């Protein structure tokens, strides 16, 4: 009997010492951080009580202020469309300038530093700065989402260009093509599908973010949402949130349809 037990094969996929230590470290960190942030059970329980009341006040959703909702949503859509269009156009040359296999080191460093700067600050923080600089309204929102677009597409586009096959570029170059023609016929055809992919993804995320920049006064439906929160109009809050979710959902479906048309 004992011999059979001893002969049993070891358990499959046993966690190694390293994995166990890492799991322990993560657990200890979580406990430490919870302690540091001063979470308490009592507060959580009172919160649940508040949450129930909160949900109760969300229903039934308020549909009496549809004009405010519609004008906010329309402005959000406009911000998303304009910021995506302008940002995509700007990020095309910046991505090309940032590709190490095409450009000298000095140029790529400048382009990459610009992209890192655009990416590092959250769109809302950028929106605050633009609101202070150009005033309240949709313009600040468009500018801040443009910065985010350049940061995202510029980086991924430069990386995509660095991964292309050099053979096609050499072939175009061997025909005596000018630099512009090498880009147009050797580089862009290889990365265009991925560029369309990044652009549609960014359009999607601009749509999400355009509903938020209004919280700091940069236009769009976020302003109405924040105002409703401050007035405790939770039934209107629910209406706005449901509309945003529906909008993003429709956006996702549309983006997928567009991708299919372009075979990405």
């Amino acid at each position, binding site marked *: 009997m004992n011999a059979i037990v001893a002969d049993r094969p070891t358990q499959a*996929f046993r966690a190694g010492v390293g994995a166990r230590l890492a799991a322990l470290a*993560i657990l200890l*960190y*979580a406990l430490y*951080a*919870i302690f*540091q*942030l*001063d*979470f308490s059970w009592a*507060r*959580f329980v009172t*919160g649940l009580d*508040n*949450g129930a009341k*909160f949900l109760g006040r969300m229903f039934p959703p308020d549909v009496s202020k549809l004009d405010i909702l519609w004008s906010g949503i*329309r*402005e959000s*859509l*406009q*911000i998303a*469309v*304009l910021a995506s*269009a302008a940002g995509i156009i700007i990020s095309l040359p910046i991505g090309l300038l940032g590709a190490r296999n095409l450009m000298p080191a000095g140029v790529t460093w400048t382009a990459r530093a610009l992209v890192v700067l655009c990416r*590092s*600050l*959250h769109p*809302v*923080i950028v929106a*605050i*700065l633009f609101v*202070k*600089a*150009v*005033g309240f*309204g*949709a*313009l600040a929102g*468009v*500018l801040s989402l443009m910065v985010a677009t350049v940061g995202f597409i510029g980086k991924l586009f430069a990386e995509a260009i660095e991964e292309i096959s050099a053979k096609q570029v050499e072939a175009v170059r061997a025909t005596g093509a000018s630099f512009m023609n090498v880009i147009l016929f050797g580089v862009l055809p290889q990365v265009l599908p991925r560029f369309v992919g990044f652009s549609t993804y960014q359009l999607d995320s601009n749509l*999400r*973010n355009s*509903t*938020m920049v209004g*919280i*700091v006064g940069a236009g769009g439906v*976020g302003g109405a*949402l*924040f105002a409703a*929160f401050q007035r405790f109009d*939770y039934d209107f809050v629910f209406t706005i*949130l449901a509309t*945003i*979710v529906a*909008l*993003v*959902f429709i956006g996702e479906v549309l983006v997928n349809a*567009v991708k299919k*048309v*372009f075979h990405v």
Partner: protein
Amino acid sequence: MSEAAASMNHSAPLNERLWQRHTLAQKLLRFAVWLVMAAAIVQSLRTIEVIPEFLYDAPEQMGDLLQRMWPIDWAYYADGVHAALVETLHIASLGTLLSMLLAVPFGLLVASNLTRHRMLNAVARLVLVSTRSVNSLIWALLFVAVFGPGPLAGTLAIAFRSIGFVGKLMGEAIEQTPRGPIEALEATGAGKGAQIWYGYWPQIKPAFWSIVLLRWDINVRESAVLGLVGAGGIGMALDTALNLFQWQRVAMVLVAIFAVVVIAEVVVTQVRKRVL
């Protein structure tokens, strides 16, 4: 030369077939998409309320803003920034850990090869889309209303916002696992739990940790703004400095956020290189 080529085109029967990359329907569809995009841009440009004067002096105003931020108030770091910065990191890390736990069930449910139930897939997908489309700032507003201001609201906001991201990518990773090992397990009579633990998990493990790392990196950025709506972290310091027009302190906070974001990115790249 070109004449010769043209005449060859006419003489050779093979070339009489016109080779086209796209069919007429595809061309029309593509044209329609471009048309709709152009129309959307034109319509947005025409109706959006942008005051042109604001646009013209935007560079000047930005310059003015930067001038007021200089010199950066470095001394403020020890007084007002450091503690808030650490709090931000805690919010981001705890939120990511919590989202990991919350996202797993939905990730399992959304994968159509694991959960063969259309309704469950659709419900999970709806949950994932909703948590992603509500922004972390809006989640933070909700949780501030429920739990009161402070890092608890921020952590929950980060966690709930991340469920969609982690769950969606995890579901996609599960859908891409090869059938072989799963069928082998099924043949031994292994239950669903054993299939997940011994069949799916070892195959999606690297992808899963990579998704979580990526999300942590994003969450470090996102948690920096939660303070604007009272959900704790460095955003509180930013908000205070902004409201008091202390631009040199604002600059200090922005530099701190920038540094943390860059460090987080370096950490993620290194961990990915070494461990995954």
